[in-house]
């Protein structure tokens, strides 16, 4: 099959590799019809994520048609499914509590050592995201082997376009969980740092949960424009002082709930030196740990902070005093995708959530390396690249 493979910094290629096969009883093989490049894929592209190996197939946002099933899979050939980026078993204690991203059994036993050392306990597996998260081949390919296919993939009814449901795989549930973690109450003023895909879905989710006003913060004009389209007020932090603007806009109180969706693209497991590299060398990077500090300082007394943004290592100058003195609540975590998929699919079918607005570019899989290049170089207008293996190359 053809697949997008990683070879090093800014070096991804379309190559012919061995087709996936059924390995375990609960597996299914999916023929990919649509897959997206995630902001976190850019960290792989930039070479920031350790434990990558040459030839690894990338991609953790994908959907497609079931073409083969193991004896314990509940899927049927021909069904269309969206696959969650988290690989979770559905049987362990954590899955029983719907904490799917904390699944005990998604990672191969040998790969669990690294996460156990870094975090105290190993997390779930992820598709196409280094060997720390399992070393699973990802979805930017013609075919994917999907483990635990009886609990992960969600079946999509006929007549619904791929592009409407593709983001159930990651960024839509991640934005929704970010808003849920903010404990939004009717009448709330909610501030969202970062208008990437997750931030924009958090804006929509916050309104659906009853927020009175949502204030979105970014520096890309096009992305702020998208946030305004969903009814958000906006602050361009290059033009205004964020804290001052937030205080003025909330009558000196501060937002009731603050969502830090900057750098959320990274589903990764950074180590410290990698973290420092990112801070030093990316535009938003220096602001990255800053956004969580700013959220804590701006948040009203007794308010709530939600952090879908991924922090993999350690940050310094964390305003622990403000956090404690103001009595804030902080909730965070990798997304429990499987928990949110059914409700969000229904919300899409009911027309409550707009998903396709995000897609700026559609390319055949064969042109994926060009997709990475433009997503990396032109973040303002390239908001989301969808790859379609079935699309004829231009």
């Amino acid at each position, binding site marked *: 099959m053809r697949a997008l493979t990683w070879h090093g910094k800014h070096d991804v290629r379309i190559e012919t590799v061995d087709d996936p096969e059924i*390995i375990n009883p609960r597996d299914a093989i999916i023929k990919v019809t649509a897959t997206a490049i995630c902001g976190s894929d850019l960290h792989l592209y930039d070479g920031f994520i350790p434990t990558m190996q040459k030839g690894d197939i990338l991609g953790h946002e994908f959907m497609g048609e079931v073409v083969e099933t193991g004896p314990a899979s509940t899927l049927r050939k021909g069904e269309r499914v969206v696959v969650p980026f988290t690989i979770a*078993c*559905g049987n362990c204690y954590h899955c029983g509590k719907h904490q799917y991203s904390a699944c*005990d059994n998604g990672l*191969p036993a040998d790969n669990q*050592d690294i996460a156990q050392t870094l975090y105290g306990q190993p997390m779930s597996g992820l598709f196409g995201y280094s060997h720390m998260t*399992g070393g699973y*081949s990802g979805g930017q390919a013609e075919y994917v082997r999907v483990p635990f296919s009886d609990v992960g993939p969600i079946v999509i009814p006929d007549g619904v376009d791929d592009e409407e449901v593709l983001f159930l795989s990651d960024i839509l549930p991640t934005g929704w969980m970010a808003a849920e973690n903010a404990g939004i109450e009717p009448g709330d003023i909610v501030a969202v740092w970062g208008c990437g895909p997750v931030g924009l879905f958090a804006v929509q989710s916050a309104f659906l949960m009853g927020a009175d006003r949502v204030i979105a913060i970014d520096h890309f004009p096009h992305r702020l424009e998208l946030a305004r389209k969903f009814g958000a007020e906006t602050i361009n932090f290059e033009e205004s002082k964020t804290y001052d603007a937030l205080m003025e806009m909330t009558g000196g109180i501060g937002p009731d709930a603050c969502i830090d969706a900057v750098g959320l693209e990274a589903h990764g497991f950074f180590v410290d030196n990698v973290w420092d590299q990112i801070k030093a060398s990316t535009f938003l990077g220096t602001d990255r740990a800053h956004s969580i500090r700013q959220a804590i300082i701006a948040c009203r007394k007794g308010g709530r902070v939600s952090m879908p943004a991924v922090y993999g290592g350690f940050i310094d100058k964390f305003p622990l005093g403000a956090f404690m003195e103001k009595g804030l609540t902080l909730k965070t975590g990798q997304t429990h995708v499987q928990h949110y998929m059914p409700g969000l699919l229904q919300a899409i079918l009911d027309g409550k959530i707009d998903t396709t607005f995000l897609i700026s570019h559609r390319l055949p899989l064969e042109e994926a390396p060009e997709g990475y290049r433009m997503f990396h170089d032109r973040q303002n207008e390239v908001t989301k690249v969808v790859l379609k293996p079935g699309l004829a190359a231009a």
Partner: protein
Amino acid sequence: MSGQLPDSAPPATARQRQAKEWPADGVDDAVGDTLVGQAVTINRPASELFSFFRDFANLPSFMENVERVEVLDAERSRWAVKAPGGKTVEWTSGITDEVPDRLIAWASEKGADVPNSGRIDFRPAGDRGTVVTATILYDPPAGAIGRLVAKIFQREPAIQARRDLRRFKQLMETGEVASAARTRKQRDEEKG
């Protein structure tokens, strides 16, 4: 009991290993001087876990380095285990204590390539399932240097016990052992 720590921390977590003073709490006829302890919680009933484990022929399905276990009779079994450097070590093991659904203890017989003994405890843990604890004593071949070599090749018993217990958990909870292999050929290479 002499050698027991004054608090609740398990002996295998002691900063200074005192295995010689530690008469292997509950391991009768202790064989070996290096102690490995590891606990895992498995979301299945103790009786199910005990039954699967007690049929020693099942063990190679999750113990990666165990090439085969031949059940000789109700008490004794013959083990063949991969060792560093492509070698195989063998021994005959006998059950020294057994409480159905709760405990299996064993010790190797004289002449073992790697003298060892230990016990597996199955302790019900309410809605979390069962806490399975492995306590293993062994004499590493060539002492400390052999242990270091084994560690480099990741065949050190502490690493192996940790990973084997994870695989036991995966098999019992999910019905399969997690693998990231894309093809059956890759999977077979991983198993070595």
